[in-house]
């Protein structure tokens, strides 16, 4: 088994020794970028697959995410800054009037594990607060969650505000939540819709090109 496979498997087992394995791999002179891409990212992806298969729950992913962050902290000083992967920033929120957060949190978690920078504004967030934060953080994507038919119009409202203030073209806006659909997303002029958290990650990666857009 290669060092990368060991790291990936340890992360998948949620083993606290994963960080130590990363240190050992660095000490042996393994490529830091490969430790991330073939070890940590593969391990996280396996955890995501297990979540989709109902073998893991959100808490297991939270632990895996924390472990992965610790591993990356150890690797970062060894990375050549010009080769360091940098992914886009995503501002995510449950829209105004809606306090459901489970789906939104899961999307945020999976995006974070996929390497995106996440700015999670929480639930019941006013349209301008979302737009202001997206501008402030230089976000590429605005992700809007709604779990009720009576809060879906608030997704549309964010897009309307963006249009009214001449900022629509600066952000990719995606929507999701149980009552939403692709046709709803199209009807309000969103850039994309995802049926579940895994699909949301693929959608954001697709919208951000190779995933290296800042």
């Amino acid at each position: 088994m290669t060092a990368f496979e060991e790291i990936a498997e340890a992360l998948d087992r949620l083993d606290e020794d994963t960080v130590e394995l990363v240190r050992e791999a660095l000490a042996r002179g393994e490529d830091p970028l490969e430790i991330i891409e073939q070890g940590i990212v593969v391990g996280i992806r396996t955890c995501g697959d297990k979540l989709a298969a109902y073998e893991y729950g959100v808490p297991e992913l939270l632990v895996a995410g924390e472990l992965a962050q610790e591993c990356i902290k150890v690797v970062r000083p060894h990375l050549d800054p010009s080769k360091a992967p940098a992914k886009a920033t995503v501002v995510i929120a449950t829209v105004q009037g809606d306090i459901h957060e489970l789906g939104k949190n899961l999307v945020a978690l999976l995006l974070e594990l996929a390497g995106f920078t996440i700015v999670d504004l929480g639930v019941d967030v006013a349209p301008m607060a979302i737009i202001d934060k997206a501008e402030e953080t230089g976000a590429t994507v605005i992700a809007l969650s709604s779990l009720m038919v009576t809060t879906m119009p608030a997704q549309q409202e964010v897009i309307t505000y963006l249009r009214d203030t001449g900022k629509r073209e600066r952000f990719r806006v995606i929507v999701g939540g149980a009552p939403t659909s692709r046709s709803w997303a199209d009807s309000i002029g969103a850039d994309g819709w995802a049926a579940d958290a895994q699909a949301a990650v693929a959608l954001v990666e697709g919208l951000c090109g190779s995933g290296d857009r800042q």
Partner: protein
Amino acid sequence: MKERDFDLAFAKKLRQLYADVTGSRGMPDPDRVVPDDETADLVFAAAVELLAEVGLYNKDSQRVVQVTREEILEIASSRLSEIELGTGAERVTVRERKPGSTFPPVIVTGPVGGPFTEECYLPCHLSYAQEPTCQGLLGGVLLSWQGIENMAGRPNELIVTAAEGELIARAAEAAGKPGLYLGPFPPGGISPEAIFCNHSAASLPPGQAQIPIQLMPELKLSWTKIDLALYCQAHGVHPWTDIVSVIGAFCRNALESSISQTAGVLGAWTFTGGSTASVWSTDIEGLCTRKRNLWTNCATTRALERNVGNPVFLLGYASAGPCTEMALLETAAYSVAYTASGGELIWGGSTCNGVDTNAYAGLQGRMVGEAAEAACGLSADRANQIIERLFAAFEADLPVAPKGLTFDRCYDLDSIRPTRQYAQLYQRTKDALSADFGLSFTL
């Protein structure tokens, strides 16, 4: 305590309880949707342990409300075993049931939160209310009223939910059942302002409607939930204690979800003061119609039935739409499961997962009542055989269920009668349920 830390403590304890339960007797058979006595008791014991150890999390104060095992059991033992709903000629007693009980659960039907345009709202609710088996009406959500869009948390919501309340009461009256139980009221009320305002304004007798108090998944509350409980106490309204558990988020499977759901019921009673438990299960992707969702609800029902004896309200949805065989088979499946589990009240008859606009019809409610009646007295084994055969007929299609027809295309809007096509489909499906699935109808 940070919410993240509570979530991790919750999951750690739940995983341990799952290992304990499955270690002692193996994983419960997911095909036995109506679980056995031993499983039910293990779920209850695990739920008490879970709640006693992790407590309830108040998201607003970021504090944990701790309850001791003794307090949990004391509160559970003091719940009512029956309550009355509705008024006048429509008053019904929700009585304690057990698996094999020869009398049916109380049947409360409607679109259950499904969205509507203005012109379909009243006739569709009337189509449910007029069914002879309908003992309560659970409303849908009006998308707009007289040009005002329904938007939760805004003044719009007060205006539109006031109209919902008025229309649902008119539907009951038009069906000749003015005292009909109207469930959580107003049907689409989300904000406490809309609920307090429109519940008060409707001046309904306490038994005719309830106030929904939903614990958030998993084991979480907020100040608003306590406000709602205090409103109920002040107005003599029995709170609708509502617990949803999500499979695929903090709970990985039906057993974990049922333990959490049961703990949620026990925890919610500590501040709602209620005796009923409205339970429902959903997957993270939003489907609540799979076998594991039914298993979760039935296991919780059996756990409460054997260890508390309070009225349990069970939610049933169909993924398919009206005027499809699949929606009728799905409805029969959950009605049989809930009746055979000893559930006291079924709230069902909704279709398209409660998401599509105007995709609801009263014949679905008729199936809830007739299938529940047919399932009375069935043993758990016999019920499980029927449920398994029903699921075999539609389970693979759940993620791609047919949408069917909207209400205005499967009912005549003047006479509020199903089209000939829908009536014939209903009868054909009922015949097949008798001949091919072994369900003997008496209604």
